[in-house]
């Protein structure tokens, strides 16, 4: 296993975790649907459907962060330390989520059920939009420099320097927000599909979910097409390190379009993914007996997200372009861990299928019997 092979492998794993995270954001999407759901029983069903999966999304976020840290520490150092407010707001929204399910209906919860539901709503909106913003920066860049020799300057030792607004500029960049909004409406659509799959509730609620899937799915399609149009026409950085570790960068028009063509498997994944998402949403909306839309849409989402990571990182592309100093941009070559660490981590990653297997088994065991309002009266619930 060469270093280059290991870097490619770990970028692939990061893309798998990122795609799993975006799929699992249906939990956040479901939380945003509390607004606009008037019936207490329907609200309770939404909360309890999402509440049995929230920890999986939360954990995937943590593992995504941990895997990125272990495999591409220069990204962790540059992005988290630089876009401070972007990440802090994401984290804060997950902090308030973590207690809300468990505490919302417990007596003595101090803040009242409405406040905890508001926390869930905030996490749903902020989590989806800002994670979309964070991923969009992989294409549209950020205002930073990396000078490793700064570590020897006692007065100002930080190697990654960022603009003065520390992430707010990324949040208020309309290009980034378009992907953020697309992720939000994708998550809401998938929440509808997931609930149609796991709830054994009344036809009226299911019908309303199908209707909401249509509206949210429509908005998602508009925004994601907008984002893809921008992406495919964007100028990207072709970046190659020389023998002395210096990055030589060329600005390449239509970089990501070329990447999709040259990395044909990424283009294929994008196409299959888009079709699968549209099929999952479309058939759920128009075929009243169809409940498996979440799996088509989920797998499609995963393929689309993975393809985005692939065109961002593979093909000598800078996956974190620096607008202030192109030579400071991050590539999977110049930001990765050492060959030794990547190799150790690769051995650990052999256990991933085992982890996925027990998650799938537990998911199957828990969702085999559909969740009903009756169950909420008798068993442990949120």
């Amino acid at each position, binding site marked *: 296993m060469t270093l280059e092979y290991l870097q490619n492998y770990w970028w692939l794993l990061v893309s798998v975790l990122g795609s799993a995270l975006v799929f699992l954001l249906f939990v956040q999407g479901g939380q945003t649907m509390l607004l606009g759901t008037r019936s207490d029983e329907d609200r309770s069903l939404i909360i309890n459907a999402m509440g049995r*999966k929230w920890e*999986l999304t939360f*954990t995937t976020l943590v*593992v995504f962060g941990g895997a990125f840290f272990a495999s591409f520490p220069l990204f962790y150092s540059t992005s988290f330390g630089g876009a401070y407010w972007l990440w802090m707001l994401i984290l804060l929204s997950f902090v308030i989520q973590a207690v809300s399910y468990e505490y919302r209906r417990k007596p003595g919860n101090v803040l009242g059920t409405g406040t905890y539901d508001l926390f869930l709503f905030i996490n749903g909106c902020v989590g989806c939009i800002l994670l979309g913003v964070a991923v969009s920066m992989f294409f549209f860049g950020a205002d930073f420099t990396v000078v490793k020799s700064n570590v020897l300057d006692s007065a100002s030792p930080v190697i990654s320097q960022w603009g003065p607004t520390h992430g707010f500029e990324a949040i208020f960049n309309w290009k980034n927000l378009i992907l953020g909004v697309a992720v939000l409406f994708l998550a809401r659509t998938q929440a509808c599909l997931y609930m149609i799959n796991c709830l054994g509730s009344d036809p009226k609620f299911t019908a309303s979910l199908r209707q909401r899937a249509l509206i949210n799915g429509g908005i998602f399609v508009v925004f994601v097409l907008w984002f893809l149009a921008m992406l495919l026409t964007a100028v990207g950085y072709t970046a190659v390190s020389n023998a002395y*570790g210096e990055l030589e960068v060329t600005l390449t028009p239509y970089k990501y379009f070329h990447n999709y063509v040259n990395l044909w498997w990424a283009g294929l994944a994008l196409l299959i993914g888009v079709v699968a998402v549209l099929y999952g949403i479309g058939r759920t909306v128009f075929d009243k007996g169809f409940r498996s839309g979440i799996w088509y849409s989920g797998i499609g989402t995963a393929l689309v997200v993975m393809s985005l990571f692939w065109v961002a990182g593979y093909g000598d592309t800078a996956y974190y372009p620096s607008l202030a100093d192109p030579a400071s941009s991050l590539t999977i070559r110049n930001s990765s861990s050492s060959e030794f660490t990547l190799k150790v981590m690769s051995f650990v990653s052999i256990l991933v299928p085992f982890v996925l297997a027990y998650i799938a088994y537990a998911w199957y065991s828990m969702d085999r019997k559909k969740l009903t309002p009756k169950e909420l009266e008798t068993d442990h619930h949120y």
Partner: protein
Amino acid sequence: MNDLMTVVDWSRWQFALTAIYHWLFVPLTLGLGVIVAIMESIYFKTQSQRWLQITKFWMLLFGINFAIGVATGIILEFEFGTNWSNYSWFVGDIFGAPLAIEGLLAFFMEATFIAVMFFGWKKVSPGFHLASTWLTAIGATLSAFWILVANAWMQYPVGMEFDPAQMRNVMDNFWAVAFSPVALNKFFHAVLSGWCLSGVFVVAVSCWFMFKKRNREMALDSIKIGGWVGAAGILLTFATGHSSAVDVARTQPMKLAAMEGLYRGEVGQELVAVGVLNPDKKPGDSQDVYKAKIALPYGLSILANNDPNTFVPGIDDLIEGIELTPQGDTVRTVSYAERIEIGKAAHAALRDYDAARAAHDDQAMKDAEKRIREYYPYFGYGYLDSVEEAVPPVGMTFYSFHIMVIFGGWLLCFFALVLLAAYWKPRWYDSQWLPILAFLTVPIVWVCSEAGWITAEVGRQPWIIQDIMPNKAAISAISASSVITTFWLFAIVFTIFLIAEMSIMWRQIVKGSKMKIS
């Protein structure tokens, strides 16, 4: 104070705040998870409805605590990136691995099976449910293992070498990182202290049932399990505490000196059991160290080296580079002034390397690299302006260490009493004094547990990586106002959630005391 130091200090405050809050909940998760699993195992074997009710009651309290533990934990991992970004690059190659493994192998296990544990009673078989409860407890413990491996590595950096081309450290021995003696001692010490804390919690809540004359049998059953888990926890915490002290003496002698307020060491060094420090005492001056003390002869030599006739260096000895043999002969070690010089030479060599690399001068790069390797063990001292900077806050380290040990001693007595009463004198629980003693022990065990971490973390200052990188070189280039704002945000949010958690717990305990047990 300049802006750099303001950012460093507030980043430290923020990390301390989040870590202290997190550790309020984690030990209870670690111990209560095991206790609940034991209770469910009894239910599984006996099929007694009473044990099912007991299990579900404690499981409910576990869930309330778990949620806030998760909420406070997520910040800690990401703070290494947000607030300590230089650190994340400088040693991310080593430090990132245990965090990733924790998430992959432990956190997923916890998150997957906790859902089965709470919602699966009627959805999965009893055997699968019991397995899920144990796997939740094991997942929490494995999670603690990898986090403590990461923490131990900061205190005892092994299994790595410096790569001047990338200006960072890279791992060269994973097993040395994962199974260093410091990591193993830290793991057992921290996890078993969680068992002890949870034992106190279970006994105290059960004592409240006794105090109110409600569900006596359930309370007594819970006390027995909590008592045994707690007693095992405190005994093994003491054992691993001793081996941790041996590690500290070997790897962080300055921390050990601060823990004891020791400025001038001796062969056959006494151990100060209780003492009041002179707050005006500074390194190098001739003032008395203590206002008052009670000491055990030879105690520190035995604690640190398992041998009463060994020398334990004090703060001034370490700064000056002096050790004594048992015969009283002076041995020279590397003084702190020399360490600073060597550290600065390492920085200069790295600068030369960087310049040679920019000029593509391979020979000059090789020459510089040789010097870097020679001086690297003291690289971090190159950032220090004076030897005093390398001395941790003695007062806080000394008092937190002594609080931990004294309170730990009380916990040993407490569990002896709890088990004695549970098996031979159950009527003691019907009187008021034993329940009241249990209530008073609740704050004691939490303070004891936090004091342990304060000793470990304050005592290693100023290092984020022992001898290699001080805090002030590890930070992010963010404004002080940003860190101050997030500090207060977290302080407010966590405090509100803590109040909510305690209030919910209290209501559930009251409800549990009134439930009808089969």
